[in-house]
């Protein structure tokens, strides 16, 4: 049974025609299902949990990266396959990584059901798919409990799970290797010194003074962060054009 989660913005009138075509195509393909509509105070995770209890086996997010981010906490706990039907003009990086084409064209890819178990990562109690970044810092990172790594002068730290898109629209990061990619772009004075690159299972940050880190672009303050990865924890529908 399929369950489609419509983000608030796709319920706007300007998407009405496109949604109508998509719903018809899903019916033609025999993969139509119940529709849940997100609203300001509706908890996406709770909606999905309820439908999984009622027997939903596949949950499709109709929207963009933010639609998925609203439900991240529920992804690793359910034995459900997830997918994205990307819509709108905003960032759809997850969809690009997964190889899901925009709008109507995604229906056939969903129907083809190529499924990949992919990693999900966590900072303390919060899950993330893409990356954690700490700009311009000297904060030491305790890597897998055995060694400490820090920029000597300053540097930009990035810890990737699925990763991000580079300038050539390639995926930087591997979402199914069961490892976090740690990248430190160190600077010596104002000059770029080099790019440190390691693959790790977990990283600890413990500092006396509060620092800011960015989890999938959202700023979070704190002193202690434990960043780890759960390999192959979430099943995703992917397309042939996937970037991994």
């Amino acid at each position, binding site marked *: 049974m399929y369950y489609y989660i419509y983000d608030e913005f796709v319920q706007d009138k300007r998407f009405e025609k496109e949604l109508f075509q998509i719903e018809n195509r899903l019916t033609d393909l025999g993969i139509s299902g119940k529709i849940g509509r997100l609203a300001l105070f509706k908890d996406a995770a709770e909606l999905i949990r309820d439908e999984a209890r009622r027997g939903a086996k596949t949950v499709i997010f109709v929207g963009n990266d933010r639609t998925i981010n609203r439900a991240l906490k529920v992804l690793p706990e359910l034995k459900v396959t997830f997918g994205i039907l990307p819509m709108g003009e905003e960032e759809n990086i997850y969809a690009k990584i997964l190889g899901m084409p925009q709008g109507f064209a995604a229906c056939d890819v969903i129907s083809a059901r190529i499924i990949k178990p992919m990693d999900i990562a966590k900072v303390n109690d919060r899950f993330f798919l893409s990356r954690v970044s700490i700009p311009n810092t000297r904060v030491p990172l305790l890597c897998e409990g055995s*060694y400490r790594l820090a920029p000597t002068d300053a540097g930009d730290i990035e810890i990737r799970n699925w990763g991000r898109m580079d300038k050539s629209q390639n995926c930087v990061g591997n979402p199914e290797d069961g490892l976090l990619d740690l990248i430190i772009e160190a600077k010596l004075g104002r000059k770029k010194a*080099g790019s440190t690159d390691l693959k790790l299972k977990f990283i600890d940050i413990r500092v006396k003074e509060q620092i800011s880190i960015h989890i999938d672009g959202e700023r979070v303050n704190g002193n202690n962060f434990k960043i780890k*990865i759960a390999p192959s924890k979430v099943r995703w529908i992917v397309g042939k054009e996937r970037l991994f």
Partner: protein
Amino acid sequence: MFKKDGEFAEGGETVIARGVKLEGDFNSQGNVIVEGEVSGSVTTSSDLRVSESAKINADVKARNAVVAGQISGNTKIQDKLELMETASIDGDIETGVLSVAPGARVNGRIVMGGDTVSEAVKGNKKENKKSEKNADMAEDEI
């Protein structure tokens, strides 16, 4: 394995770049490039390249190594150790095959031959298993 110029033949290696300091016991199963500062120990069951800018205050164990930077500590290499013109090693060396470029500096005992270094590899594998076990324990907690 290295290409002729000391570069790795394949990508995906671990890089400790200039401008970064590593303190502690670093274990890896893949190729490692050190360009920055390291203190503690460096162990890999694959190949190691120590660039000219690198300063290692640690014991080093690897399968093959090309060294152009500074190492203060004992170096155990299973197969081949190549010291470039700018290399400086303060410590004992155990290796299967040694190649030294003119200008390279070594202050320490050098032991060569297959028997002496097989234990280095055994040690590498043991330490890698230990660090993998630590990592797996953390993974189970998620």
